[in-house]
């Protein structure tokens, strides 16, 4: 910045451009897009530092994810990412962080496995999905009264309860529910009529994916068109304002956490009801849908219409990362790294915003 410009000179050169730039920099889309661009650049720098070619690596990612043969798989990964993004986004809308996606996801998988295995028949699939939603919703909802009654923040209780659920499910899969005679920690294969209905002859994308898409549509409608969605947004924008205006914040949190848990649980159900049709210890968590979904929700700022878009990014990274490893010899951990950079930049924005308002409130 320069010192005060003396008097009647109309506009110092470049000032108009600078003002335009400052105005543009305040557009709400700048930070998310900037975060992605920055992540890609940092990733490129690291690849280059390792003596490899960033262009080759990135084109391998895109090709791996988007070539016609992979689209089926990419699409299913996108669906799971969207589902887990929903689990993060619903509470995020009211300013709460659900870090318990893993626990909710495996409980959903567990409930679906048990119900589908116990009740074969035409209703097996819907009942399994329903059971998954109910169990995971109940588990997610526990965090709401903990926050309302005992002042344990939802971000903390979800984070700490989640590993317990994961451990319990892991125990159940390895011992009581384990397939007899198998050396792998997994349940028995589900019977034919307890498998998620397929779409045509696609091998990865099935009707479960359509359920997840429908859930996103419902979230969008609730968020923009209903009183509950309005209250969710009001509380997210200013919790005290909501309470003052008559929103029963505790009840709202209960509903949001239950809905979030249900979304994660349904993702778990769809995964176990799809090939290889069983609950395998660790298999729900190893692809990292929870974290990718969380990142996608953050990047979208919880906005329902943006979540499918941001989820594309993470699904492509996920699927293309493996291809990159094969063809460009770049370890797939790079895609985790890119996710991490995106989150850090978004978090940085929050900190900077807080600093800015602090300063402007003289």
């Amino acid at each position, binding site marked *: 910045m320069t010192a005060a410009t003396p008097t009647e000179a109309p506009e110092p050169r470049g000032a108009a451009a600078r003002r335009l730039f400052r105005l543009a920099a305040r557009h709400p889309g700048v930070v998310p897009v900037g975060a992605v661009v920055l992540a890609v650049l940092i990733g490129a720098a690291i690849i280059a530092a390792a003596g490899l070619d960033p262009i080759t690596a990135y084109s391998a990612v895109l090709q791996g994810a988007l070539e016609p043969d992979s689209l089926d798989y990419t699409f299913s990964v996108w669906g799971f990412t969207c589902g887990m993004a929903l689990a993060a986004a619903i509470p995020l809308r009211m300013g709460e962080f659900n870090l318990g996606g893993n626990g909710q996801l495996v409980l959903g998988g567990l409930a679906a496995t048990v119900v589908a295995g116990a009740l074969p028949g035409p209703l097996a699939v819907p009942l399994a999905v329903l059971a998954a939603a109910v169990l995971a919703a109940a588990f997610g909802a526990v965090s709401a009264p903990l926050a309302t009654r005992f002042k344990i923040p939802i971000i903390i209780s979800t984070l700490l309860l989640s590993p317990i659920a994961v451990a319990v499910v892991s125990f159940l899969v390895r011992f009581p529910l384990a397939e007899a005679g198998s050396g792998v920690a997994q349940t028995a294969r589900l019977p034919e009529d307890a498998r998620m209905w397929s779409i045509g002859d696609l091998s990865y994308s099935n009707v479960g994916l359509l359920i997840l898409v429908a859930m996103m549509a419902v979230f969008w409608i609730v968020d923009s068109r209903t009183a509950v969605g309005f209250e969710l947004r*009001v509380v997210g924008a200013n919790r005290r304002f909501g309470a003052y205006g008559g929103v029963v914040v505790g009840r709202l949190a209960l509903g949001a956490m239950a809905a979030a848990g249900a979304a994660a649980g349904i993702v778990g159900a769809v995964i176990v009801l799809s090939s290889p049709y069983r609950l395998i210890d660790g298999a729900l968590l190893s692809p990292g849908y929870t974290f990718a979904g969380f990142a996608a929700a953050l990047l979208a700022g919880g906005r329902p219409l943006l979540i499918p878009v941001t989820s594309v990014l993470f699904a492509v990274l996920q699927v293309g990362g493996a291809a990159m490893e094969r063809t460009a010899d770049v370890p797939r951990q790079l895609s985790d790294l890119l996710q991490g950079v995106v989150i850090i930049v978004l978090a940085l924005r929050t900190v900077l915003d807080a600093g800015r308002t602090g300063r402007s409130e003289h």
Partner: protein
Amino acid sequence: MTDAAAELRGISKRFDAVVANDGVDLVLRRGTIHAVMGENGAGKSTLMSILFGLLRPDSGQILVGGVERHFRGPLDAIAAGLGMVHQHFRLFDSMTVAENVVYGAEPRRRGRLDRTAAAERVRELSDRYGLDTDPDSVVGTLSAGARQRVEILKALHRDAEILILDEPTAVLTPVEVDSLFAVLRRAADEGATVVLVTHKIHEVLAISDEVTVLRDARVTGRFRTAEATGSALVQSMTGREVTEVANAGTGEPGDEALQVTGLTVVDRGVHRVRDVSFTVRRGEIVGVAGVSGNGQREVVAAILGTGSAESGEIRLLGRDVASLDVRRRRAIGLAVVPEDRRGEGMAVTMTTAENLALGHHRTAPIGASRGWRRGWLSLRAQRDMARRLIADYDVRTSGERQPVGALSGGNAQKVVIARELSHRAPVLIAEQPTQGVDIGAIESIHQRLLDYRRDGGAVLLVSHEIAELQALADRVLVMFAGRIVAEYSRADATTARIGAAMAGTGESSRSEGGAS
């Protein structure tokens, strides 16, 4: 001009599309008290921030002691002999007065803080200017007035010759205002130059030597106070004559709409409200006077249900509300204009329409009851209501979709008032309803409160402004240290009595529920 301590010439400053200062000239003569007045958004704060180096002007010159300066920050301004007392104090509560005063410019002995010298310095300055401040008290234990004196001492300690005070009387009792003015007069007599930023006309007339009035970023009036009249100042502030509205006191109050009995609020072991009892009847405005922080907010929170009560009973239209949440209390018939506008009264990132809709969003919109289903929003009704209220209340906004945080303070206040009054609830609590609002809008808000009363509303009006209470209230209660220490009928509510009771020094004039 040799006697100018500081001079601003042709200062202009814009923030994006908003022009905050447009060619403003200001001459501050040595040894005088200069009032800078104007409505909110007129550009006073920007101008002072420029003078104190917090903002840089787009064009124009700053002269201090006849020399042109380019301040890169407040430190440069302080070095040039300026001092500023902000509206919100910047003090360390856990430290002593002396430590706060010398912070950043400490007397040292062998590289360490010399506490004796610091205390001595505070005592010397305090005596010289009649500030009456004990250097060893811990700041956290002091009243607002005393803290302000610490801020003034801070500036004087750094040898400030030009002292800027931003709305200094907002947090003070009338008695404290008088003693502040005495201090300022003494400082001016000692050769200092005092700049008083305010929008209160009677203060300007009482203390200043010269006045500069700003309106819409420009200077619209320069007066010698001795030759100025209140109406001339108002006219140059607002560009028109303003008629004051007042409660004619007509009509008999009806049933008891809000009854509070023996209310006690304890927060973390501290009694915020002690045994407060009062009633508000339909067709009546009951005023609550008091310096902020004497329990008013806690009383309102207990009535609304956002705060908890230790004991006592609250009845809304005869119903005990102890077990009811905020939503049910509002449904019975309660609306609240909160004091903390940004913190509680709005969501700054949401649109004006959405801010106006909260509380209305679960009820059938007027004229759209057909086709509306419970639990769904009617976005059209939301928009129509927003447009109607924006027009009714003259909210200056680019449209109902503009985020409320982008509005000026006064316009944001109008949004809050519009929303709460439009509930047409039988009981209305209005906390500082005209804070940050322009004079013209104050008049219209006052008129609306009187209309509310005329239409049978029961209004509890909590205000720091004694004049506002006198103009509107049928009765005035005074709160001090969590109690209602006095109650005056409209005829008895003189400034002297209310002021004394606000400071806790009035004679107890209330039989029931008073000081015990």
